[in-house]
């Protein structure tokens, strides 16, 4: 299953803004990432989902050349991420989970300062959005709440007009209104400007609302990396009665999880393998197939 999905991933367009091959990373002997391959198509909004400690932040940092992988290589706009040139840096923006930098500065000063580095800096957008957010440009960054700080970091990233926007848990500290605005902005950027967006989250509803592609990271491995529609089409839950279940021997092809009920019937989560049909058991007249929501799939896979 893993191999099949990996091979599908590697067949994608390698001219993508960000891709990595066979990434391994460990901290003090604990493996955090293990053989991760990832491609993000141009203009896609890829939601990287995983439980706490799954390695999302580490993967993002490796993809941007901020952390050295134990093995493998990441590429940004075709360049090795660890040796990115200025041309590539001006085309990307990154919002870390905790934007700590320049905390001693006031918001306005920070935006002025950062703006000088980017040729496509949209000062008007930055000022207007700041005003709309109700944040005073005279406020010191260190004195902002985590949510406010994240909003400022997002304004800063979007004012760059990036071709690649990388957000590490951007909605973790935001209130529902700000989160909705952020998602709208991401969708708008991707739709109108063709910005490629990579964002990590563990809030599945955010992902369903805005992502065109989804990648599941679990225990350092990338379980899925596919478009949202494909994911929904290729994964189902099948309720199989006890009598039929008794005829099943071993693990089914593409089976992700199996739960037995007290009456002997079972609920199976199945993935359809490329160029094959659903397993025969799913096509039995007494079996009931349900479309699987993203959250259900996430829970089934990770539990």
């Amino acid at each position, binding site marked *: 299953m893993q191999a099949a999905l990996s091979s599908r991933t590697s067949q994608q367009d390698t001219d993508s803004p960000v891709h990595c091959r066979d990434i391994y990373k460990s901290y003090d002997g604990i493996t955090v990432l293990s053989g991760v391959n990832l491609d993000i198509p141009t203009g896609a909004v890829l939601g990287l989902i995983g439980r706490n400690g799954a390695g999302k932040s580490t993967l993002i940092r490796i993809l941007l*050349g901020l952390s050295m992988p134990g093995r493998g290589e990441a590429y940004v706009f075709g360049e090795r991420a660890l040796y990115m040139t200025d041309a590539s840096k001006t085309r990307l923006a990154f919002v*870390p*989970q905790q934007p700590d*930098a320049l905390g001693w500065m006031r918001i306005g000063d920070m935006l002025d300062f950062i703006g000088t580095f980017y040729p496509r800096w949209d000062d008007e957008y930055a000022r207007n959005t700041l005003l709309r957010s109700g944040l005073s440009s005279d406020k010191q960054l260190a004195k902002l709440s985590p949510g406010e700080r994240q909003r400022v970091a997002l304004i800063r990233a979007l004012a760059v007009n990036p071709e690649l926007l990388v957000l590490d848990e951007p909605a973790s500290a935001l209130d529902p209104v700000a989160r909705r605005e952020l998602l709208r902005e991401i969708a708008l950027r991707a739709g109108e400007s063709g910005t490629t967006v990579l964002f990590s989250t563990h809030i599945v509803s955010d992902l369903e609302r805005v992502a065109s592609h989804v990648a599941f990271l679990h225990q350092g491995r990338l379980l899925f990396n596919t478009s949202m529609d494909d994911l929904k089409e290729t994964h189902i839950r099948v309720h199989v009665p006890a009598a039929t279940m008794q005829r099943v021997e071993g693990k089914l092809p593409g089976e992700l999880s199996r739960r037995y009920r007290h009456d002997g019937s079972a609920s199976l989560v199945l993935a359809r393998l490329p160029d094959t049909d659903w397993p025969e058991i799913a096509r039995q007249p007494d079996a009931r197939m349900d479309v699987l929501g993203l959250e259900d799939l996430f829970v089934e896979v990770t539990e």
Partner: protein
Amino acid sequence: MHRLVLPGAWRCFSVCSRTALQFEMLCLLYAMIVTLSLSGAAINPGMLPAATTICCALSAICMSVVGDGCYALMRTLRDTQCPGWRNVVLKAVGMASLCLLVLPMTLMIAINHSLSAALYVAIAGMTGLLLVLLRRSLHSTSTDTLLWRSLLIIAPLLMVIVVVRELAQVTIVLSLLLLLLIAVACRNASCLLSRQPERWLATSEHNHPTHRPANINYSFRHIKPGVIPTMRVFLGKPYAPVTGKKRLQQLALLIAILVMPSVVLFIGDSDHSSAGFLKAWRLTAPLVTCLIAIVIWIIFMYRAHAAMLSGGLQLSELALLPHLGSSRKQLGGLLYAWFGAPTLIVIALMLLGQLSAPKQTRQFSLGLWACIAMFLLLSISQTLVGMLTRTSRKSAETPSPPKAGLWETVIAPAWISLWLCFVTFSSVQYGPFSGNHFLRWFSPGLCLAFLLLGAIHIYRLARRPHPFVETER
């Protein structure tokens, strides 16, 4: 002068003391330094000028803090609005305390450290402190806090007893320790009035003269994207490029702090001529420059450490900024910005201190600077190691970075402190570059070793794809 010295002293304290307890611990540390230096003077009379200088420098700081506390008290009294008679009582008590704190100070200076003035200060300070402690102990639930506060009272008293037995300079010691007590009492009263048990009243930015009005000192539109200015901005406030006006203010503050102990000594001296001031300056300058050099270095390194090595993601943002050149250029810029300014300031202070020192204390002064140089080199080496072994931040999502071991937390600092004390006192006895072979070769050898270590760390950093990359330890 008031607007320069008070904010300066406040900043000096506020950097080190975020809470009331930390402030008191700092005062205790100062008291210990005074006792040690005076005890040293009792053993070796040659150290008496140095000990007097330390006392004067610390009393200057204490006086600034007391003044600052009084300012905060006045502000609070003006702004506090309690219902009915409580308001009147509170303000009356506040004003009485204020008078009690300010008058002894004036008197003490006027009567030139006379014992009666010192006793007056003692009564005022002790009463204030005990009242505050009593009040706070009723509400405090932390045994540790109470223990430390008890120590704060007992330790200076014990030290006074020790020093009184050893030395005739009772008045100076007593007045200084009482100044410390007053500073603590003033601060505690301030906390009490502000009803924030562990907060220094003046930490509220709108309630203090150090509050920076908007649009004065910093402007970043003029900064062109370049590696050194960028590094300086990312390293934090002390490093950041500022306008000429701000730079002049900083210079004036530095000069004011340098001159303050001489002024205090000059006021307390009987010779009020220009020669008397020069004498006071020669006496105080070497040690004051040493103290300022250490404080400045710590302020710079503290900020840099917070910005670069705290486990945050601040470096990451720097790594993704365009127009910073090649990785070698980035590393060079970082090191230049990081260590350049503080090193220059320390060297300038060293030269000033050394040139001002009288001939008979030059050897002592040189020994002290040797110790400081060792300390600075060690801190450079340590920060570079920190940068080399930087891993991802500690969070729920990534494995915890390795915790500092026993070596980093206990043994190394203890060893270094012991060594510094040993060298300092030995250099007073023998001189660092005189007859004693061990001192002659060991100190420079250690400096060389630290330099070598620093060079190795820089070489290892230079071999990385870029200096800000996180790596496995």
